[in-house]
């Protein structure tokens, strides 16, 4: 275990705490958008996919790279778009919340 690995391990440990703390106490209502939002975030694997695809030259690496880039891009783009669509619907709720709720006549 070299010092770089040690630093990475430390980042990992601290990120575990941040992740857990940030998510605790989420209302049930937001579980789905949160799941889909975190889903988009792990699309960061696109960074890795770009790295392996950029240097591709042999047929194996070209295919690997292409598939990885397609999948990772789908994950990122689809993830953020679908989360946004979902959260857009919460608008309705918000107006209800901030405005005085319209009492039925």
């Amino acid at each position, binding site marked *: 275990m070299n010092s770089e690995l040690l630093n990475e391990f430390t980042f990992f440990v601290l990120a575990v705490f941040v992740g857990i703390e940030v998510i605790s106490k989420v209302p049930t209502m937001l579980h789905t958008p949160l799941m889909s939002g*975190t889903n988009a975030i792990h699309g960061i694997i696109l960074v890795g996919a770009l790295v392996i695809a950029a240097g591709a030259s042999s047929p194996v690496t070209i295919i690997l790279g292409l598939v990885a880039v397609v999948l990772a891009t789908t994950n990122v783009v689809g993830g953020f778009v679908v989360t946004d669509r979902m959260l857009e619907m919460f608008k309705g709720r918000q107006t209800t919340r901030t405005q005085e709720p319209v009492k039925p006549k």
Partner: protein
Amino acid sequence: MSLFYALAYLLAAVLFILGLKQLSSPKTARNGNFTAAAGMVIALGATVPQLHFTAAGALIILIGVVIGAAVGTIGARQVKMTQIPQMVALFNGAGGAAAALVAVAELVKFGAHPPLTEALPSVFSIVIGSVSFAGSLVAFAKLQELMTGTPITYPGQQLVNGLLAAAIFGFVIAVLAIASIPFSFLALMLLALILGVAFVLPIGGADMPVVISLLNAFTGLAVAASGFTLNNFALIVAGTLVGASGSLLTKLMSDAMGRSLGNVLFGAFGKVQAVAGAAAGKEGRTVRTGSVEDLATLLAYSRRVIIVPGYGLAVAQAQHAVRELADLLEKRGVEVNYAIHPVAGRMPGHMNVLLAEANVPYEQLKEMDEINDEFKNADVVLVVGANDVVNPAARNTPGSPIYGMPILNADQAKNIVFMKRSMRPGFAGIDNDLLYDPKTIMLFGDAKDSLTKLVSAVKAA
């Protein structure tokens, strides 16, 4: 210069964290999604200038990004709201597969003798990423009803899965120790894919949101492991964030269903027989139906009405109709409340979203804990397109797939009205005794139609 990129990655990580924080509250959630997306743009922007492109590399990246962006956007835009969970499962699977492929490519690059510090995270990423990919596909198939949503079990299943896991473990050790077996990681990947399928098969369709959240955490951890291999800070932190928050979210979700995670994942083993037995011999029971006019009178002269919305309300798009009925009753002095079960509908929060769209006053939406003691005082419970969330089997039938899930106490009300199209079961695929209860009146038909008719009838009453 590399310092500059490192700071960009750090900034991206900070934006992910801030985005997640905002995602935890309905007021800021949409901004949170933008914040996280901004982090992603920064991370990608910092990556591209650092790459050394081969001609082929540049080409496949261009093609890949265009295809991926098109598929992602179109998929995300076209999908119906009720299908969002399976869409998320697909995207999650894509991420898991990408992580596994990146790890494979890295191992290929290192040749026959990768250093342990690179091989260990790569192998981890391959296994976990593959499990996540295969598991997500099965979850998708279950939710999309390409296959049965009921748990698929067979004798000795746990043993088989255990052996599979053991085989993978042994393979990992072998790959790490010997490391020169060419393409051994392909075999590893194959085993992991099988495990992913085998892992999700015995889990019921109703538990898929929990499974997807868990697989989401898996993909996060696979991505973090890839970050170790690539020595990339952004991947490590973002992946770990998702891994940690996904694990916690999985726990929160199974808690919301009143079950332990272990029960969700492994609860189906050896249970299905019991259910089959219990379900038998109940045919031939009678149900009571009522006319729209009878029901209108019943509702109009009640003091307390509780509405239980479910998946059928969403299918029928009856949220406006139900609000109209509620308003009408309130005008007549009836106290109307909505009882929102945490897993009513097809995604957590589904009913809140739907009813908010129809501008139902926030105060009338009651969470399960808040309202469960009120059912016994209710004159009428109006069950609109819900089924599993009021099924007493969750309390009474130990072998049932929903056994142990907390349900709404609709059975305690003086009258129970079910609005559904048939006697068909709900999502969990099991019979509902409450439909045969002497206190229950069925109003068959599409929820929107029935509600519209009821509204006219109440006006006349």
